[in-house]
């Protein structure tokens, strides 16, 4: 018997067996990794732990005592805190208020502000989290919000802390702070469950590891000493993946996209770059370097204040996504929840929303072709779902990402495909399939721009890398010049030692 025990947990959603008969234990003072493909059931297990969902069968016990939570609040009170894949803070409240929510120090219903600020300040300081607690959460970056979530767990003196893909939107520096924090919590004897798709992190942080596949326990490692990464990958996807990048050299053709002196409200320095047919151009930089802002200008998502965009020698004058798409430029945005998924609508509709215009007559849909498109991309991208009619909100995070990619890959007549953090939250196996799709599109003559914060990814799949820093393009390297040090140095604003943030 361990400190925290999952025993025979089973959970079924309509048409999906999310978890079947999963049992394992975690010891005190251990960081326990939880890995598996998209839709393997990781988040579901965490949601059951947090009282957010009820298991159909099985039980969770802490120190031998069976836990039965009626709500997340109940789990809180029992010292179980979960930081979900999609963050859950109240944007209009300040950091301090968010951290005290539900437990405001108050007398006669009036919040004792001074005491609240004192309490929160002390905890934040002791955790080494450097955030102004008077700021409203909506003004924080995603990374900072993540920190606030973790601070919440520390505030509550949790016994068990579960983190669901916490680093997927953190910069490497922010990740480092998080890892230090996790190490400290481990030292204090907490139990930490750590869900991630990144093998590097798991091997750096975790003491033990559970791998789920199709809702079943695929492997349980009490120690990671004698376990190799390839072995874990094989346990996750059920086959060996020798080279996840699978890079294939291509011949670059004529210039497809030419950006001259492009600027906007959030990107003051005019930017210049070009992308050729058949070329995959990477944009690397730290979070906040202005990469997404630049791409949003190219796509017309934000208004441009100056500059010219030329596609195949023809200037684009449209100032909205509608016009850009018709000119053959598409952007898959980085913020899936806010800019990507259309809640309440089916996978089929989410895929077809843009590309359907090629099949309509007088504004009337062509049902057969929409169904075919949806089925094709569900299959191509291996979206795990019982049916194309499933509401997208019911998919696991990584599967939602695949559907949004499907939306753009199904577009016709695309000349320039811009993907911003395309593989965020996607498992190793699916990643290499997505790269393969990108290569094929490039071979067919598309110009592809990949924005990514993962250095290995840009180095692995791109023909050329542009590095951005502080809103300007600071370096350009061809594939034969790729070097981690040089790229990181160009990405860092104040030339700190690159090793401090190496991912």
């Amino acid at each position, binding site marked *: 018997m361990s400190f925290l025990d999952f025993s025979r947990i089973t959970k079924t959603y*309509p048409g999906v067996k999310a978890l079947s008969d999963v049992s394992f234990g975690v010891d005190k003072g251990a960081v326990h990794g939880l890995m598996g493909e998209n839709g393997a059931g990781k988040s579901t297990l965490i949601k059951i732990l947090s009282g*957010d*969902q*009820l298991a*159909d069968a099985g039980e969770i016990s802490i120190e031998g005592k069976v836990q039965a939570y009626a709500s997340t609040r109940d789990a809180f009170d029992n010292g179980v805190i979960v930081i979900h894949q999609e963050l859950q803070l109240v944007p209009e409240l300040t950091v301090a208020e968010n951290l005290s929510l539900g437990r405001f120090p108050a007398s006669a219903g009036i919040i004792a502000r001074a005491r609240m600020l004192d309490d929160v300040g002390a905890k934040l300081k002791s955790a080494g989290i450097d955030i102004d607690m008077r700021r409203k959460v909506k003004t924080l970056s995603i990374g900072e919000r993540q920190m606030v979530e973790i601070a919440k767990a520390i505030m509550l003196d949790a016994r068990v802390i579960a983190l669901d893909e916490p680093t997927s939107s953190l910069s490497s520096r922010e990740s480092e702070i998080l890892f230090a924090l996790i190490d400290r919590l481990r030292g204090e004897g907490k139990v930490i469950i750590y869900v991630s798709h990144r093998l590097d992190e798991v091997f750096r942080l975790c003491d033990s590891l559970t791998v789920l596949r199709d809702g079943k326990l695929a492997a349980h490692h009490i120690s990671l000493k004698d376990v190799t990464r390839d072995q874990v990958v094989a346990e996750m996807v059920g086959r060996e993946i020798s080279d996840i990048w699978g890079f294939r050299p291509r011949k670059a053709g004529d210039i497809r996209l030419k950006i001259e002196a492009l600027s906007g409200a959030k990107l003051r320095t005019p930017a210049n770059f070009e992308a050729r047919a058949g070329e995959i151009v990477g944009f690397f930089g730290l979070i906040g370097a202005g990469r997404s802002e630049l791409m949003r200008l190219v*796509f017309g*998502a934000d208004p441009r204040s100056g500059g010219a965009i030329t596609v195949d020698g023809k200037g684009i004058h449209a100032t*909205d*996504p*509608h016009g850009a*798409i*018709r000119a053959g430029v598409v*952007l898959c*945005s980085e913020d899936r929840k*806010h*800019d*990507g*998924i*259309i*809640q*309440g*609508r089916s996978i089929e*509709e989410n895929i*077809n*929303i*843009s590309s*359907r*215009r090629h099949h*309509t007559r007088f*504004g*009337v*849909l062509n*049902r057969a072709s929409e169904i075919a498109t949806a089925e094709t991309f569900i299959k191509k991208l291996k979206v795990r779902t019982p049916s194309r009619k499933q509401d997208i909100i019911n998919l696991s995070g990584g599967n939602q990402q695949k559907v949004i990619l499907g*939306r753009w890959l199904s577009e016709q007549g695309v000349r320039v495909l811009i993907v911003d953090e395309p593989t965020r939250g996607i498992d190793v196996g699916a990643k290499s399939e997505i790269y393969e799709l990108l290569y094929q599109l490039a071979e067919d003559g598309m110009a592809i721009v990949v924005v990514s914060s993962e250095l290995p990814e840009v180095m692995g799949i791109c023909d050329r890398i542009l590095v951005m820093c502080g809103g300007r393009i600071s370096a350009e390297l061809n594939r034969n010049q790729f070097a981690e040090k040089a790229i990181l140095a160009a990405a860092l604003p104040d030339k700190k030692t690159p090793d401090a943030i190496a991912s």
Partner: protein
Amino acid sequence: MTDRLKKILLGEQGLVVIFVVAFALVSALVPNFLTDRNMLGLLQSVVTVGIVACTMMFCLAARDFDLSVGSIVAFAGMVAVMASNATGSILLGLLAAIACGAFVGFINGVVIAKFRINALITTLATMQIVRGLALIASDGRAVGINSPDFYQLALSKLLGIPTPIWVLAVLFGIFGFVLNRTVFGKNTLAIGGNPEASRLAGVNVDRTRIWIFTLQGVVCGIAGILLASRITSGQPNAAVGLELSVISACVLGGVSLAGGRATMSGVIVGVLIMGIAENAMNLLNIPAFYQYIVRGVILLLAVLLDNLRSSALGRR
């Protein structure tokens, strides 16, 4: 057994099941309910609400709101009567009414979509402006219809069924098709689901919203004409409070006020449930004051059911 029942009630077709059960119960318990005459009367009584609900469904599905429908219906009715009296041509009167409705809707749409003014506020304003116009145009009095042909719009029958009911049925069919089978309908639902993501997916959000409000105006014009014909005059005070009945019927029919969710069949059922409740209460001679309470309770129950349905999907 209770599990099965729960599953049926909270499932996709829960509302339809409830409707069928309610209909059967009322038929059995209320005398004179299930007669040809009463059925036609019932359908005629829901014509105005039903017609306007067709486009209100689009409005709500796109996360918008339209409070001005009652005023537009009254105004369009006035315009139809006054214009056909003045020109001597009923057709011109009808066209004028529809054009006026479309114009008001278009203004609503432009202000909401282009100037980004909250739909609630915008239509609250136009609701009062348009009502004022109707009152000014008629000096606050009802305007009689000169040509008896105008009455025929509401009185004429086809296959024994009054024309307004046919109009209602045709509009149900058209808007059901538009919602499910056209780009416009899908874009409307997408905007309601996530406006920013829809914009980034290339949906022309502003144009779609302007169209929604313009169509709403057109449809209010049609409803106004039929209403004027039925009450044999243009009444500046007609259709007061219509917006609330229409929104209630839509919500009853499972249209989400948070946007992104709507079905024509749901709205039809919502409209009919409201009509049946009112009709049964009239047959049972329940005083009007109590009818308000019943209507409110039905609406609350419907929303609660909807809530139960979504949470049943979420946590089990």
